[in-house]
């Protein structure tokens, strides 16, 4: 009897918990404020008539990538809210439909299909990792739909169905390597997480170093999520006994371990400067500026960029999400892409995919980082800046390009893609042609 009683008790309590969670979900949905009220939700689809324009937002809201991707969602939502407050697009409000990719690539593909087929969105802003982008790419290509992708990546891709507002390697990695060669030393140790971006980035760096008289003294890759970096530090010490440059493309958690343990092992920025390509303001905050002070990063945008547009961007963001929040490069790229899309729609006068796609190329926008322009290869021109971490966790900009650099998706240091380019404005050229 007591057996049964216990079971019943557990059953009741768990259903109770479930019920409360459900209600909690509803409450946060309604009251949280970060999800715009969605008049299209539920039942028949009244939006088709033209009350608003639905756009998809497809990022990981849960899982390991949520840490990074939710910040990008914040930036996208801010841009959408601003546009809506200013009267919307073509006189209609933008209605964001959020989907959770759950840090799982097949889920990304599934949700992309759902956004397009069921929600009938006119475009999708989304993805962070290359793997998630590669996963949704077939969906967008098959349906000839449109994805806006906000993160710096390894290049070697140029899809007609994607607009890339993050940096290509020549807008981030290559200038950083040039600068390091000139100012910090010729011997490089390459560290990265074990996935495609660091591996490709390091392939490029090795070629570049070989071409410019530098030397790769070693490289190692840490499994995603691994936090024990002692072996790597030992390798660095063995390969660079008297100091040298460390080029770091570690991702996420591993950065924290890497910098914390590097300091303990006595690898200080004066002898072992680290150039990171995945450490921005948000990551500095999580690692702790004490560990990072004096190290470098390469981006197109920092919170400390001095432009009127950025001052407004930072102020608005803090007002919206809290004083303790910081802005960074992927967030800025995400903010830009919403505006670029809006301008393209307005120029095309419709949300139909093909006119918008054609109108998007050539759009320029006065972004927080300075003026950017969408190029025929569906990537944007960007200013490249090198920053050094300072006490408060923000960056001192130590070097910057004069004006913007044009994007080069097909890398010119990699033999297989050398001499190739991409141009979607000319049907004869397209994805990959010999320039």
């Amino acid at each position, binding site marked *: 009897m007591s057996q049964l009683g216990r079971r019943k008790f*557990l059953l009741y309590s768990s259903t109770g918990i*479930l019920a409360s969670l459900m209600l*909690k979900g509803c409450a*946060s949905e309604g009251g949280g404020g970060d999800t715009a009220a969605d008049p299209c939700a539920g039942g028949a689809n009244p939006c088709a008539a033209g009350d608003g324009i639905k756009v998809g937002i497809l990022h990981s809201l849960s899982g390991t990538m949520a840490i990074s991707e939710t910040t990008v969602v914040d930036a996208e939502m801010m841009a959408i809210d601003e546009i809506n407050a200013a009267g919307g697009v073509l006189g209609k409000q933008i209605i964001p439909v959020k989907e959770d990719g759950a840090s799982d690539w097949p889920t990304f593909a599934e949700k992309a299909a759902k956004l397009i087929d069921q929600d009938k969105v006119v475009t999708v802003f989304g993805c962070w990792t290359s793997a998630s982008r590669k996963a949704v790419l077939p969906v967008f290509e098959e349906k000839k739909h449109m994805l806006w992708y906000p993160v710096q990546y390894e290049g070697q891709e140029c899809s007609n169905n994607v607009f890339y507002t993050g940096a290509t390697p020549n807008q981030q990695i290559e200038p950083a390597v040039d600068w390091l060669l000139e100012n910090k030393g010729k011997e490089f140790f390459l560290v990265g997480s074990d996935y*495609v971006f660091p591996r490709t980035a390091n392939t490029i760096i090795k070629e570049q170093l070989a071409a410019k008289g530098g030397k790769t003294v070693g490289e190692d890759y840490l499994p995603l999520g691994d936090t024990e970096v002692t072996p790597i530090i030992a390798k660095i010490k063995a390969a660079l006994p008297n100091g040298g440059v460390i080029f770091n493309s570690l991702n996420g958690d591993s950065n924290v371990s890497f910098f914390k343990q590097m300091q303990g092992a006595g690898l200080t920025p004066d002898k072992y400067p680290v150039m990171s390509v995945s450490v921005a303001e948000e990551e500095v905050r999580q690692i702790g500026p004490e560990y990072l002070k004096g190290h470098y990063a390469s981006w197109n945008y920092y919170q400390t960029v001095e432009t009127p547009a950025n001052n407004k961007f930072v102020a608005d963001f803090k007002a919206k999400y809290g004083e303790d929040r910081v802005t960074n490069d992927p967030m800025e790229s995400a903010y830009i892409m919403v505006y670029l899309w809006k301008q393209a729609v307005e120029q095309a006068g419709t949300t139909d995919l093909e006119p918008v796609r054609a109108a998007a190329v050539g759009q320029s926008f006065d972004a927080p980082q300075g003026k950017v322009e969408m190029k025929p290869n569906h990537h944007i021109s960007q200013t490249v800046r090198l920053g050094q971490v300072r006490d408060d966790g923000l960056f001192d900009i130590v070097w910057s390009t004069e004006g913007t650099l044009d994007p080069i998706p097909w890398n010119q240091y990699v033999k297989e893609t050398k001499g190739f380019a991409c141009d979607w404005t000319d049907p004869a050229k397209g994805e990959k042609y010999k320039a």
Partner: protein
Amino acid sequence: MSNKTGVQIKKKKQRNKIIELGIITTLVIIMAIILPSIIPAFRLRLIGRFLSLAIVALGIDLIWGYTGLLSLGHGIFFALGGYALAMHLNLQIPEGQIPDFFNLYGVKELPWVWQPFYSLPITILALVIVPGIAAGLIGYLVFRNRIKGVYFSILTQAALLVFYNFFNGQQKIINGTNGLKTDSSRIFDLVVSSAGVQRTFYIITVISLVLIYLLCRWLTSGRFGRLLIAIRDDETRVRFSGYDPTGYKVLVFAISGAIAGIAGALYTVQTGIITPSIMEVAFSIEMVIWVAVGGRGTLIGAILGTMLVRLGQTFLSESFPEIWLFFQGALFLIVVTVLPDGIVGWWTSYGWDKLRSLLGLKPSLITYPSLVEDPDVQQERKEMSEQ
């Protein structure tokens, strides 16, 4: 007396078999013929994926429900099957070319592991055999030393992590984290993601599910199945009865791995991509919970549980993405503490009678065995024997 009941039981069994066959046929007709014509293509694709997950759940049920081995590493075999088919599809390109992604890493020659996958028959064979052999090998190394219970679970989980790292790290062989796309590939000169091909895959999935269900039925119903249960309940006894449990466990684990391989292949073509993330720790544990929800040790439960949990997940993570983990965690707790026999187990022991009494029907005829099976009578008997 015993003869008479024996005949009755035999008749009853036969009748049940016919009923079961009828249900299966009806379901197959609904799933394979009616459903594709009434629901939109991308939903069909979703159901197809769930059905392929139900296949792997059958495999898990075979080893966990029947044999008592909790594998937390079925993601390995699932992925191996998926990769096998994806490699074949990626090779459907003009003669002399190699898949695109190899360019990223400067690979010029097709790695030797890819060579056999030019041929479709070899691929189909491989997607069963390779996971089967991998499972058999892992199983042999573990079972040989009588490592079982939680040790086995932990080791399979560690093996999973190792495979995950390996696949992530081997860009030059299988494209690392990015995995292999199948959607834009061609099969018999048709694009894999086109509606027709997808529908075919869906029907193949339904048929495979039925065939594998029947295979599992056959495996678990005879002497072999009873031996599996015996191993689960008391392995030492089995050994002292003159059986070598290692062989049986290796075989059943290999079969389960092969089933997972088939499921993985079907899942992959209906997802459009396979990446090492399929081998994340969480996914393989989820497979176990599908079986637990449905009711382990009942094949139909494995299928039912998978469909329910996956549908629930799709619905809930669409509505409340932020707190989906709360639900999932609660599900684990509830099933383990309140519903140890899963839905099907609960239904057969309580639900059916409850429903009958609610409908005002007479409780089903009480014969001697069911009288004894009645928990209350048992309780009474226990109390009396204690006095």
